[in-house]
């Protein structure tokens, strides 16, 4: 089985290996971490506990169905941004069609639910599998194409999915859309009582906890040899192949997993909105996800999460500007690429490094 397993780089040596590559500088973080920190990785559970607390408290801080609805959207966007970051940020494959997998998740789960009478929690894994399988189909192209070609091919892929949704009226009801989609069924959780997902606060808890779970899985995966392998393909595909990595297989892995996560996010969208029309999954949605990933920090773990939160709430805070507020995505994306290519995460690290230097002198 040649090329089945990634080269096992010892985790301790990973940061120096990344810093040695000249290309890494544009993606990776500045290696200002002291050596001891690298040898003994920082504890992770306090971060997760803080995130759990934040999730628990947010619906109490933001009252009213409208703002709690925004919270649900935000949690879905976090999932989507993480899924896209896995493909573009970690594996370096320009995928401009991520909205297609979001759409597949939404449509497969809804059609199984409404037309075939499946229970919601059975429809979810089916939708994830469907989105993942479609991701593998796109990966078949990704195996042979790179850069711009893959970008355009994935864009074309998203257009095909959109057109199928519009034209396959017997199943998707085309542009007329599917109406009256109910949220996930209520759950009884022992002492906590009944969780009603028609209440946006409860739906937010569900989606946010799933997002946190996905974050944890991705965080561990990307610190494992699998993460090293994906990053080696991002930095230099030919060199990675010469080290025994099978780029096609690992690209398929990242595109497929990213698609599955986007499909998972898609399962919660129709029940929250109540209706499903193909226009919710136009190409612009992919660009919005891309903006979240880039603004937060491409290829970092927390970056896309922060980007999704910022770009979900920013337009809401700019309501006074009417329709002009939608320009914020474009402005943020352009300015970020020009002046802050590492996103908010890198900007924060630069600021912190400057503070640390000033503290020493």
């Amino acid at each position, binding site marked *: 089985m040649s090329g089945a397993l990634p080269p096992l780089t010892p985790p301790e040596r990973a940061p120096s290996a990344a810093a040695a590559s000249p290309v890494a500088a*544009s993606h990776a973080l500045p290696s200002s971490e002291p050596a001891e920190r690298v040898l003994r990785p920082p504890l992770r559970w306090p971060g997760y506990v803080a995130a759990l607390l934040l999730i628990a408290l947010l619906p109490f801080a933001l009252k009213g169905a409208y703002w709690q609805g925004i919270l649900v959207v935000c949690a879905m966007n976090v999932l989507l941004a993480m899924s896209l970051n896995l493909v573009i940020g970690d594996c370096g494959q*320009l995928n401009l069609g991520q909205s297609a997998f979001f759409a597949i998740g939404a449509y497969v789960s809804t059609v199984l639910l409404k037309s075939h009478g499946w229970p919601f929690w059975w429809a979810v894994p089916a939708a994830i599998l469907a989105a993942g399988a479609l991701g593998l189909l796109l990966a078949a192209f990704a195996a042979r194409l790179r850069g711009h070609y893959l970008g355009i091919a994935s*864009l*074309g892929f998203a257009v095909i999915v959109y057109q199928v949704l519009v034209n396959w009226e017997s199943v998707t009801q085309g542009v007329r859309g599917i109406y009256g989609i109910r949220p996930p069924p209520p759950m009884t959780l022992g002492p906590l009582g009944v969780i009603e997902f028609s209440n946006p606060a409860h739906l937010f808890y569900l989606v946010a906890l799933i997002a946190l779970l996905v974050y944890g899985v991705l965080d561990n995966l990307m610190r494992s040899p699998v993460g090293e392998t994906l990053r080696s393909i991002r930095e230099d595909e030919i060199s990675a192949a010469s080290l025994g990595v099978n780029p096609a297989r690992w690209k398929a892995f990242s595109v497929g997993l990213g698609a599955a996560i986007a499909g998972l996010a898609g399962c919660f969208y129709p029940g929250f909105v109540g209706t499903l029309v193909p226009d919710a999954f136009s190409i*612009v949605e992919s660009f919005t996800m891309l903006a979240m990933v880039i603004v937060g920090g491409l290829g970092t773990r927390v970056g896309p999460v922060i980007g999704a939160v910022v770009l979900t709430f920013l337009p809401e805070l700019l309501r006074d500007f009417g329709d002009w507020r*939608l320009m914020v995505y474009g402005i943020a994306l352009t300015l970020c690429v*020009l002046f802050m290519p590492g996103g908010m995460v890198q900007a924060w690290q630069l600021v912190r490094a400057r503070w640390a230097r000033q503290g020493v002198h």
Partner: protein
Amino acid sequence: MPDILALVLQQTLNGVYLGCLYVLVALGLTLIYGVMNQINFAHADFVTIGAFTAFFSASRLATHVLGLPDATAYLLSIFFAMGAGALLGYLINAAVFAPLRDRGDELRPLIATIGVSVLLENGQLALFGPIPYSFDSPFTQHTLRLGKIFFSAQSLLVVVVAALAIGGLHAFMRHTYLGKALRAVSQDRETAGLMGINERYLIGLTIVIASALAGLAGALLGPVIVLTPFAGSSVIVKAFAIVIIGGFGNMEGTIIAGILVGIIEAFTVQYLGSGLIDLVVFVLLLAMLAVRPTGLIAERREENV
């Protein structure tokens, strides 16, 4: 002439006319790619802005202020649209391509232009609203007849203008000093620079020419498509498909592929229904990429390890 032959000829003609519109959009993309290996995603919005410029200059300025007849006003508005495109091209080069050129990353300028595209699209949405404008060209009403084949004066105008633009571009590339320098830059930027060619100026010039073509395409497309702030994006994905099918950066390939896609589209409308156009075109694109990832005419490319 038997009916079936007339039908085939009619649809081929419709296809060539559509194809010419696509070629005008796609040529700009391929020009920019040929010289600097970059994709300008905001090209779509240059097309839309060209269409809006033509609409407003034809329906407000030329007819009301200058008091010109409709036909002259429309022809004049084409030049306004080209000017608007050229200006946008100059701006995007100054703001995005020039500052990012020397940093080497292939994808960052692409992502920046996606940002510009989202920005321009939403800006137009706020300015013009989502309701389609009815942009009537005075040439659409005139129908010309050749035996059993019909075509509008507008389609004749489109084919003539496209032929003029392609011919002009070809002559510029082959027979002028600037064109020769441009081809040198697209072959090897560094060596061209060493030979005393001002590559920055030439790259800027290419983007301006490409964007003026986008404006021109917008003015010609305006009366054909539904004129909303999203008009350009509906065409641009097809233009991307054409550029890829023809081989990135290859002008001849783009022209052939554009006309081919136009003809395929015309026959899809005839035999399968207009709803399936995008589906057919993009399935063909992906099939093409699966069989021949380099397009009809391959781009010369070195692999640096």
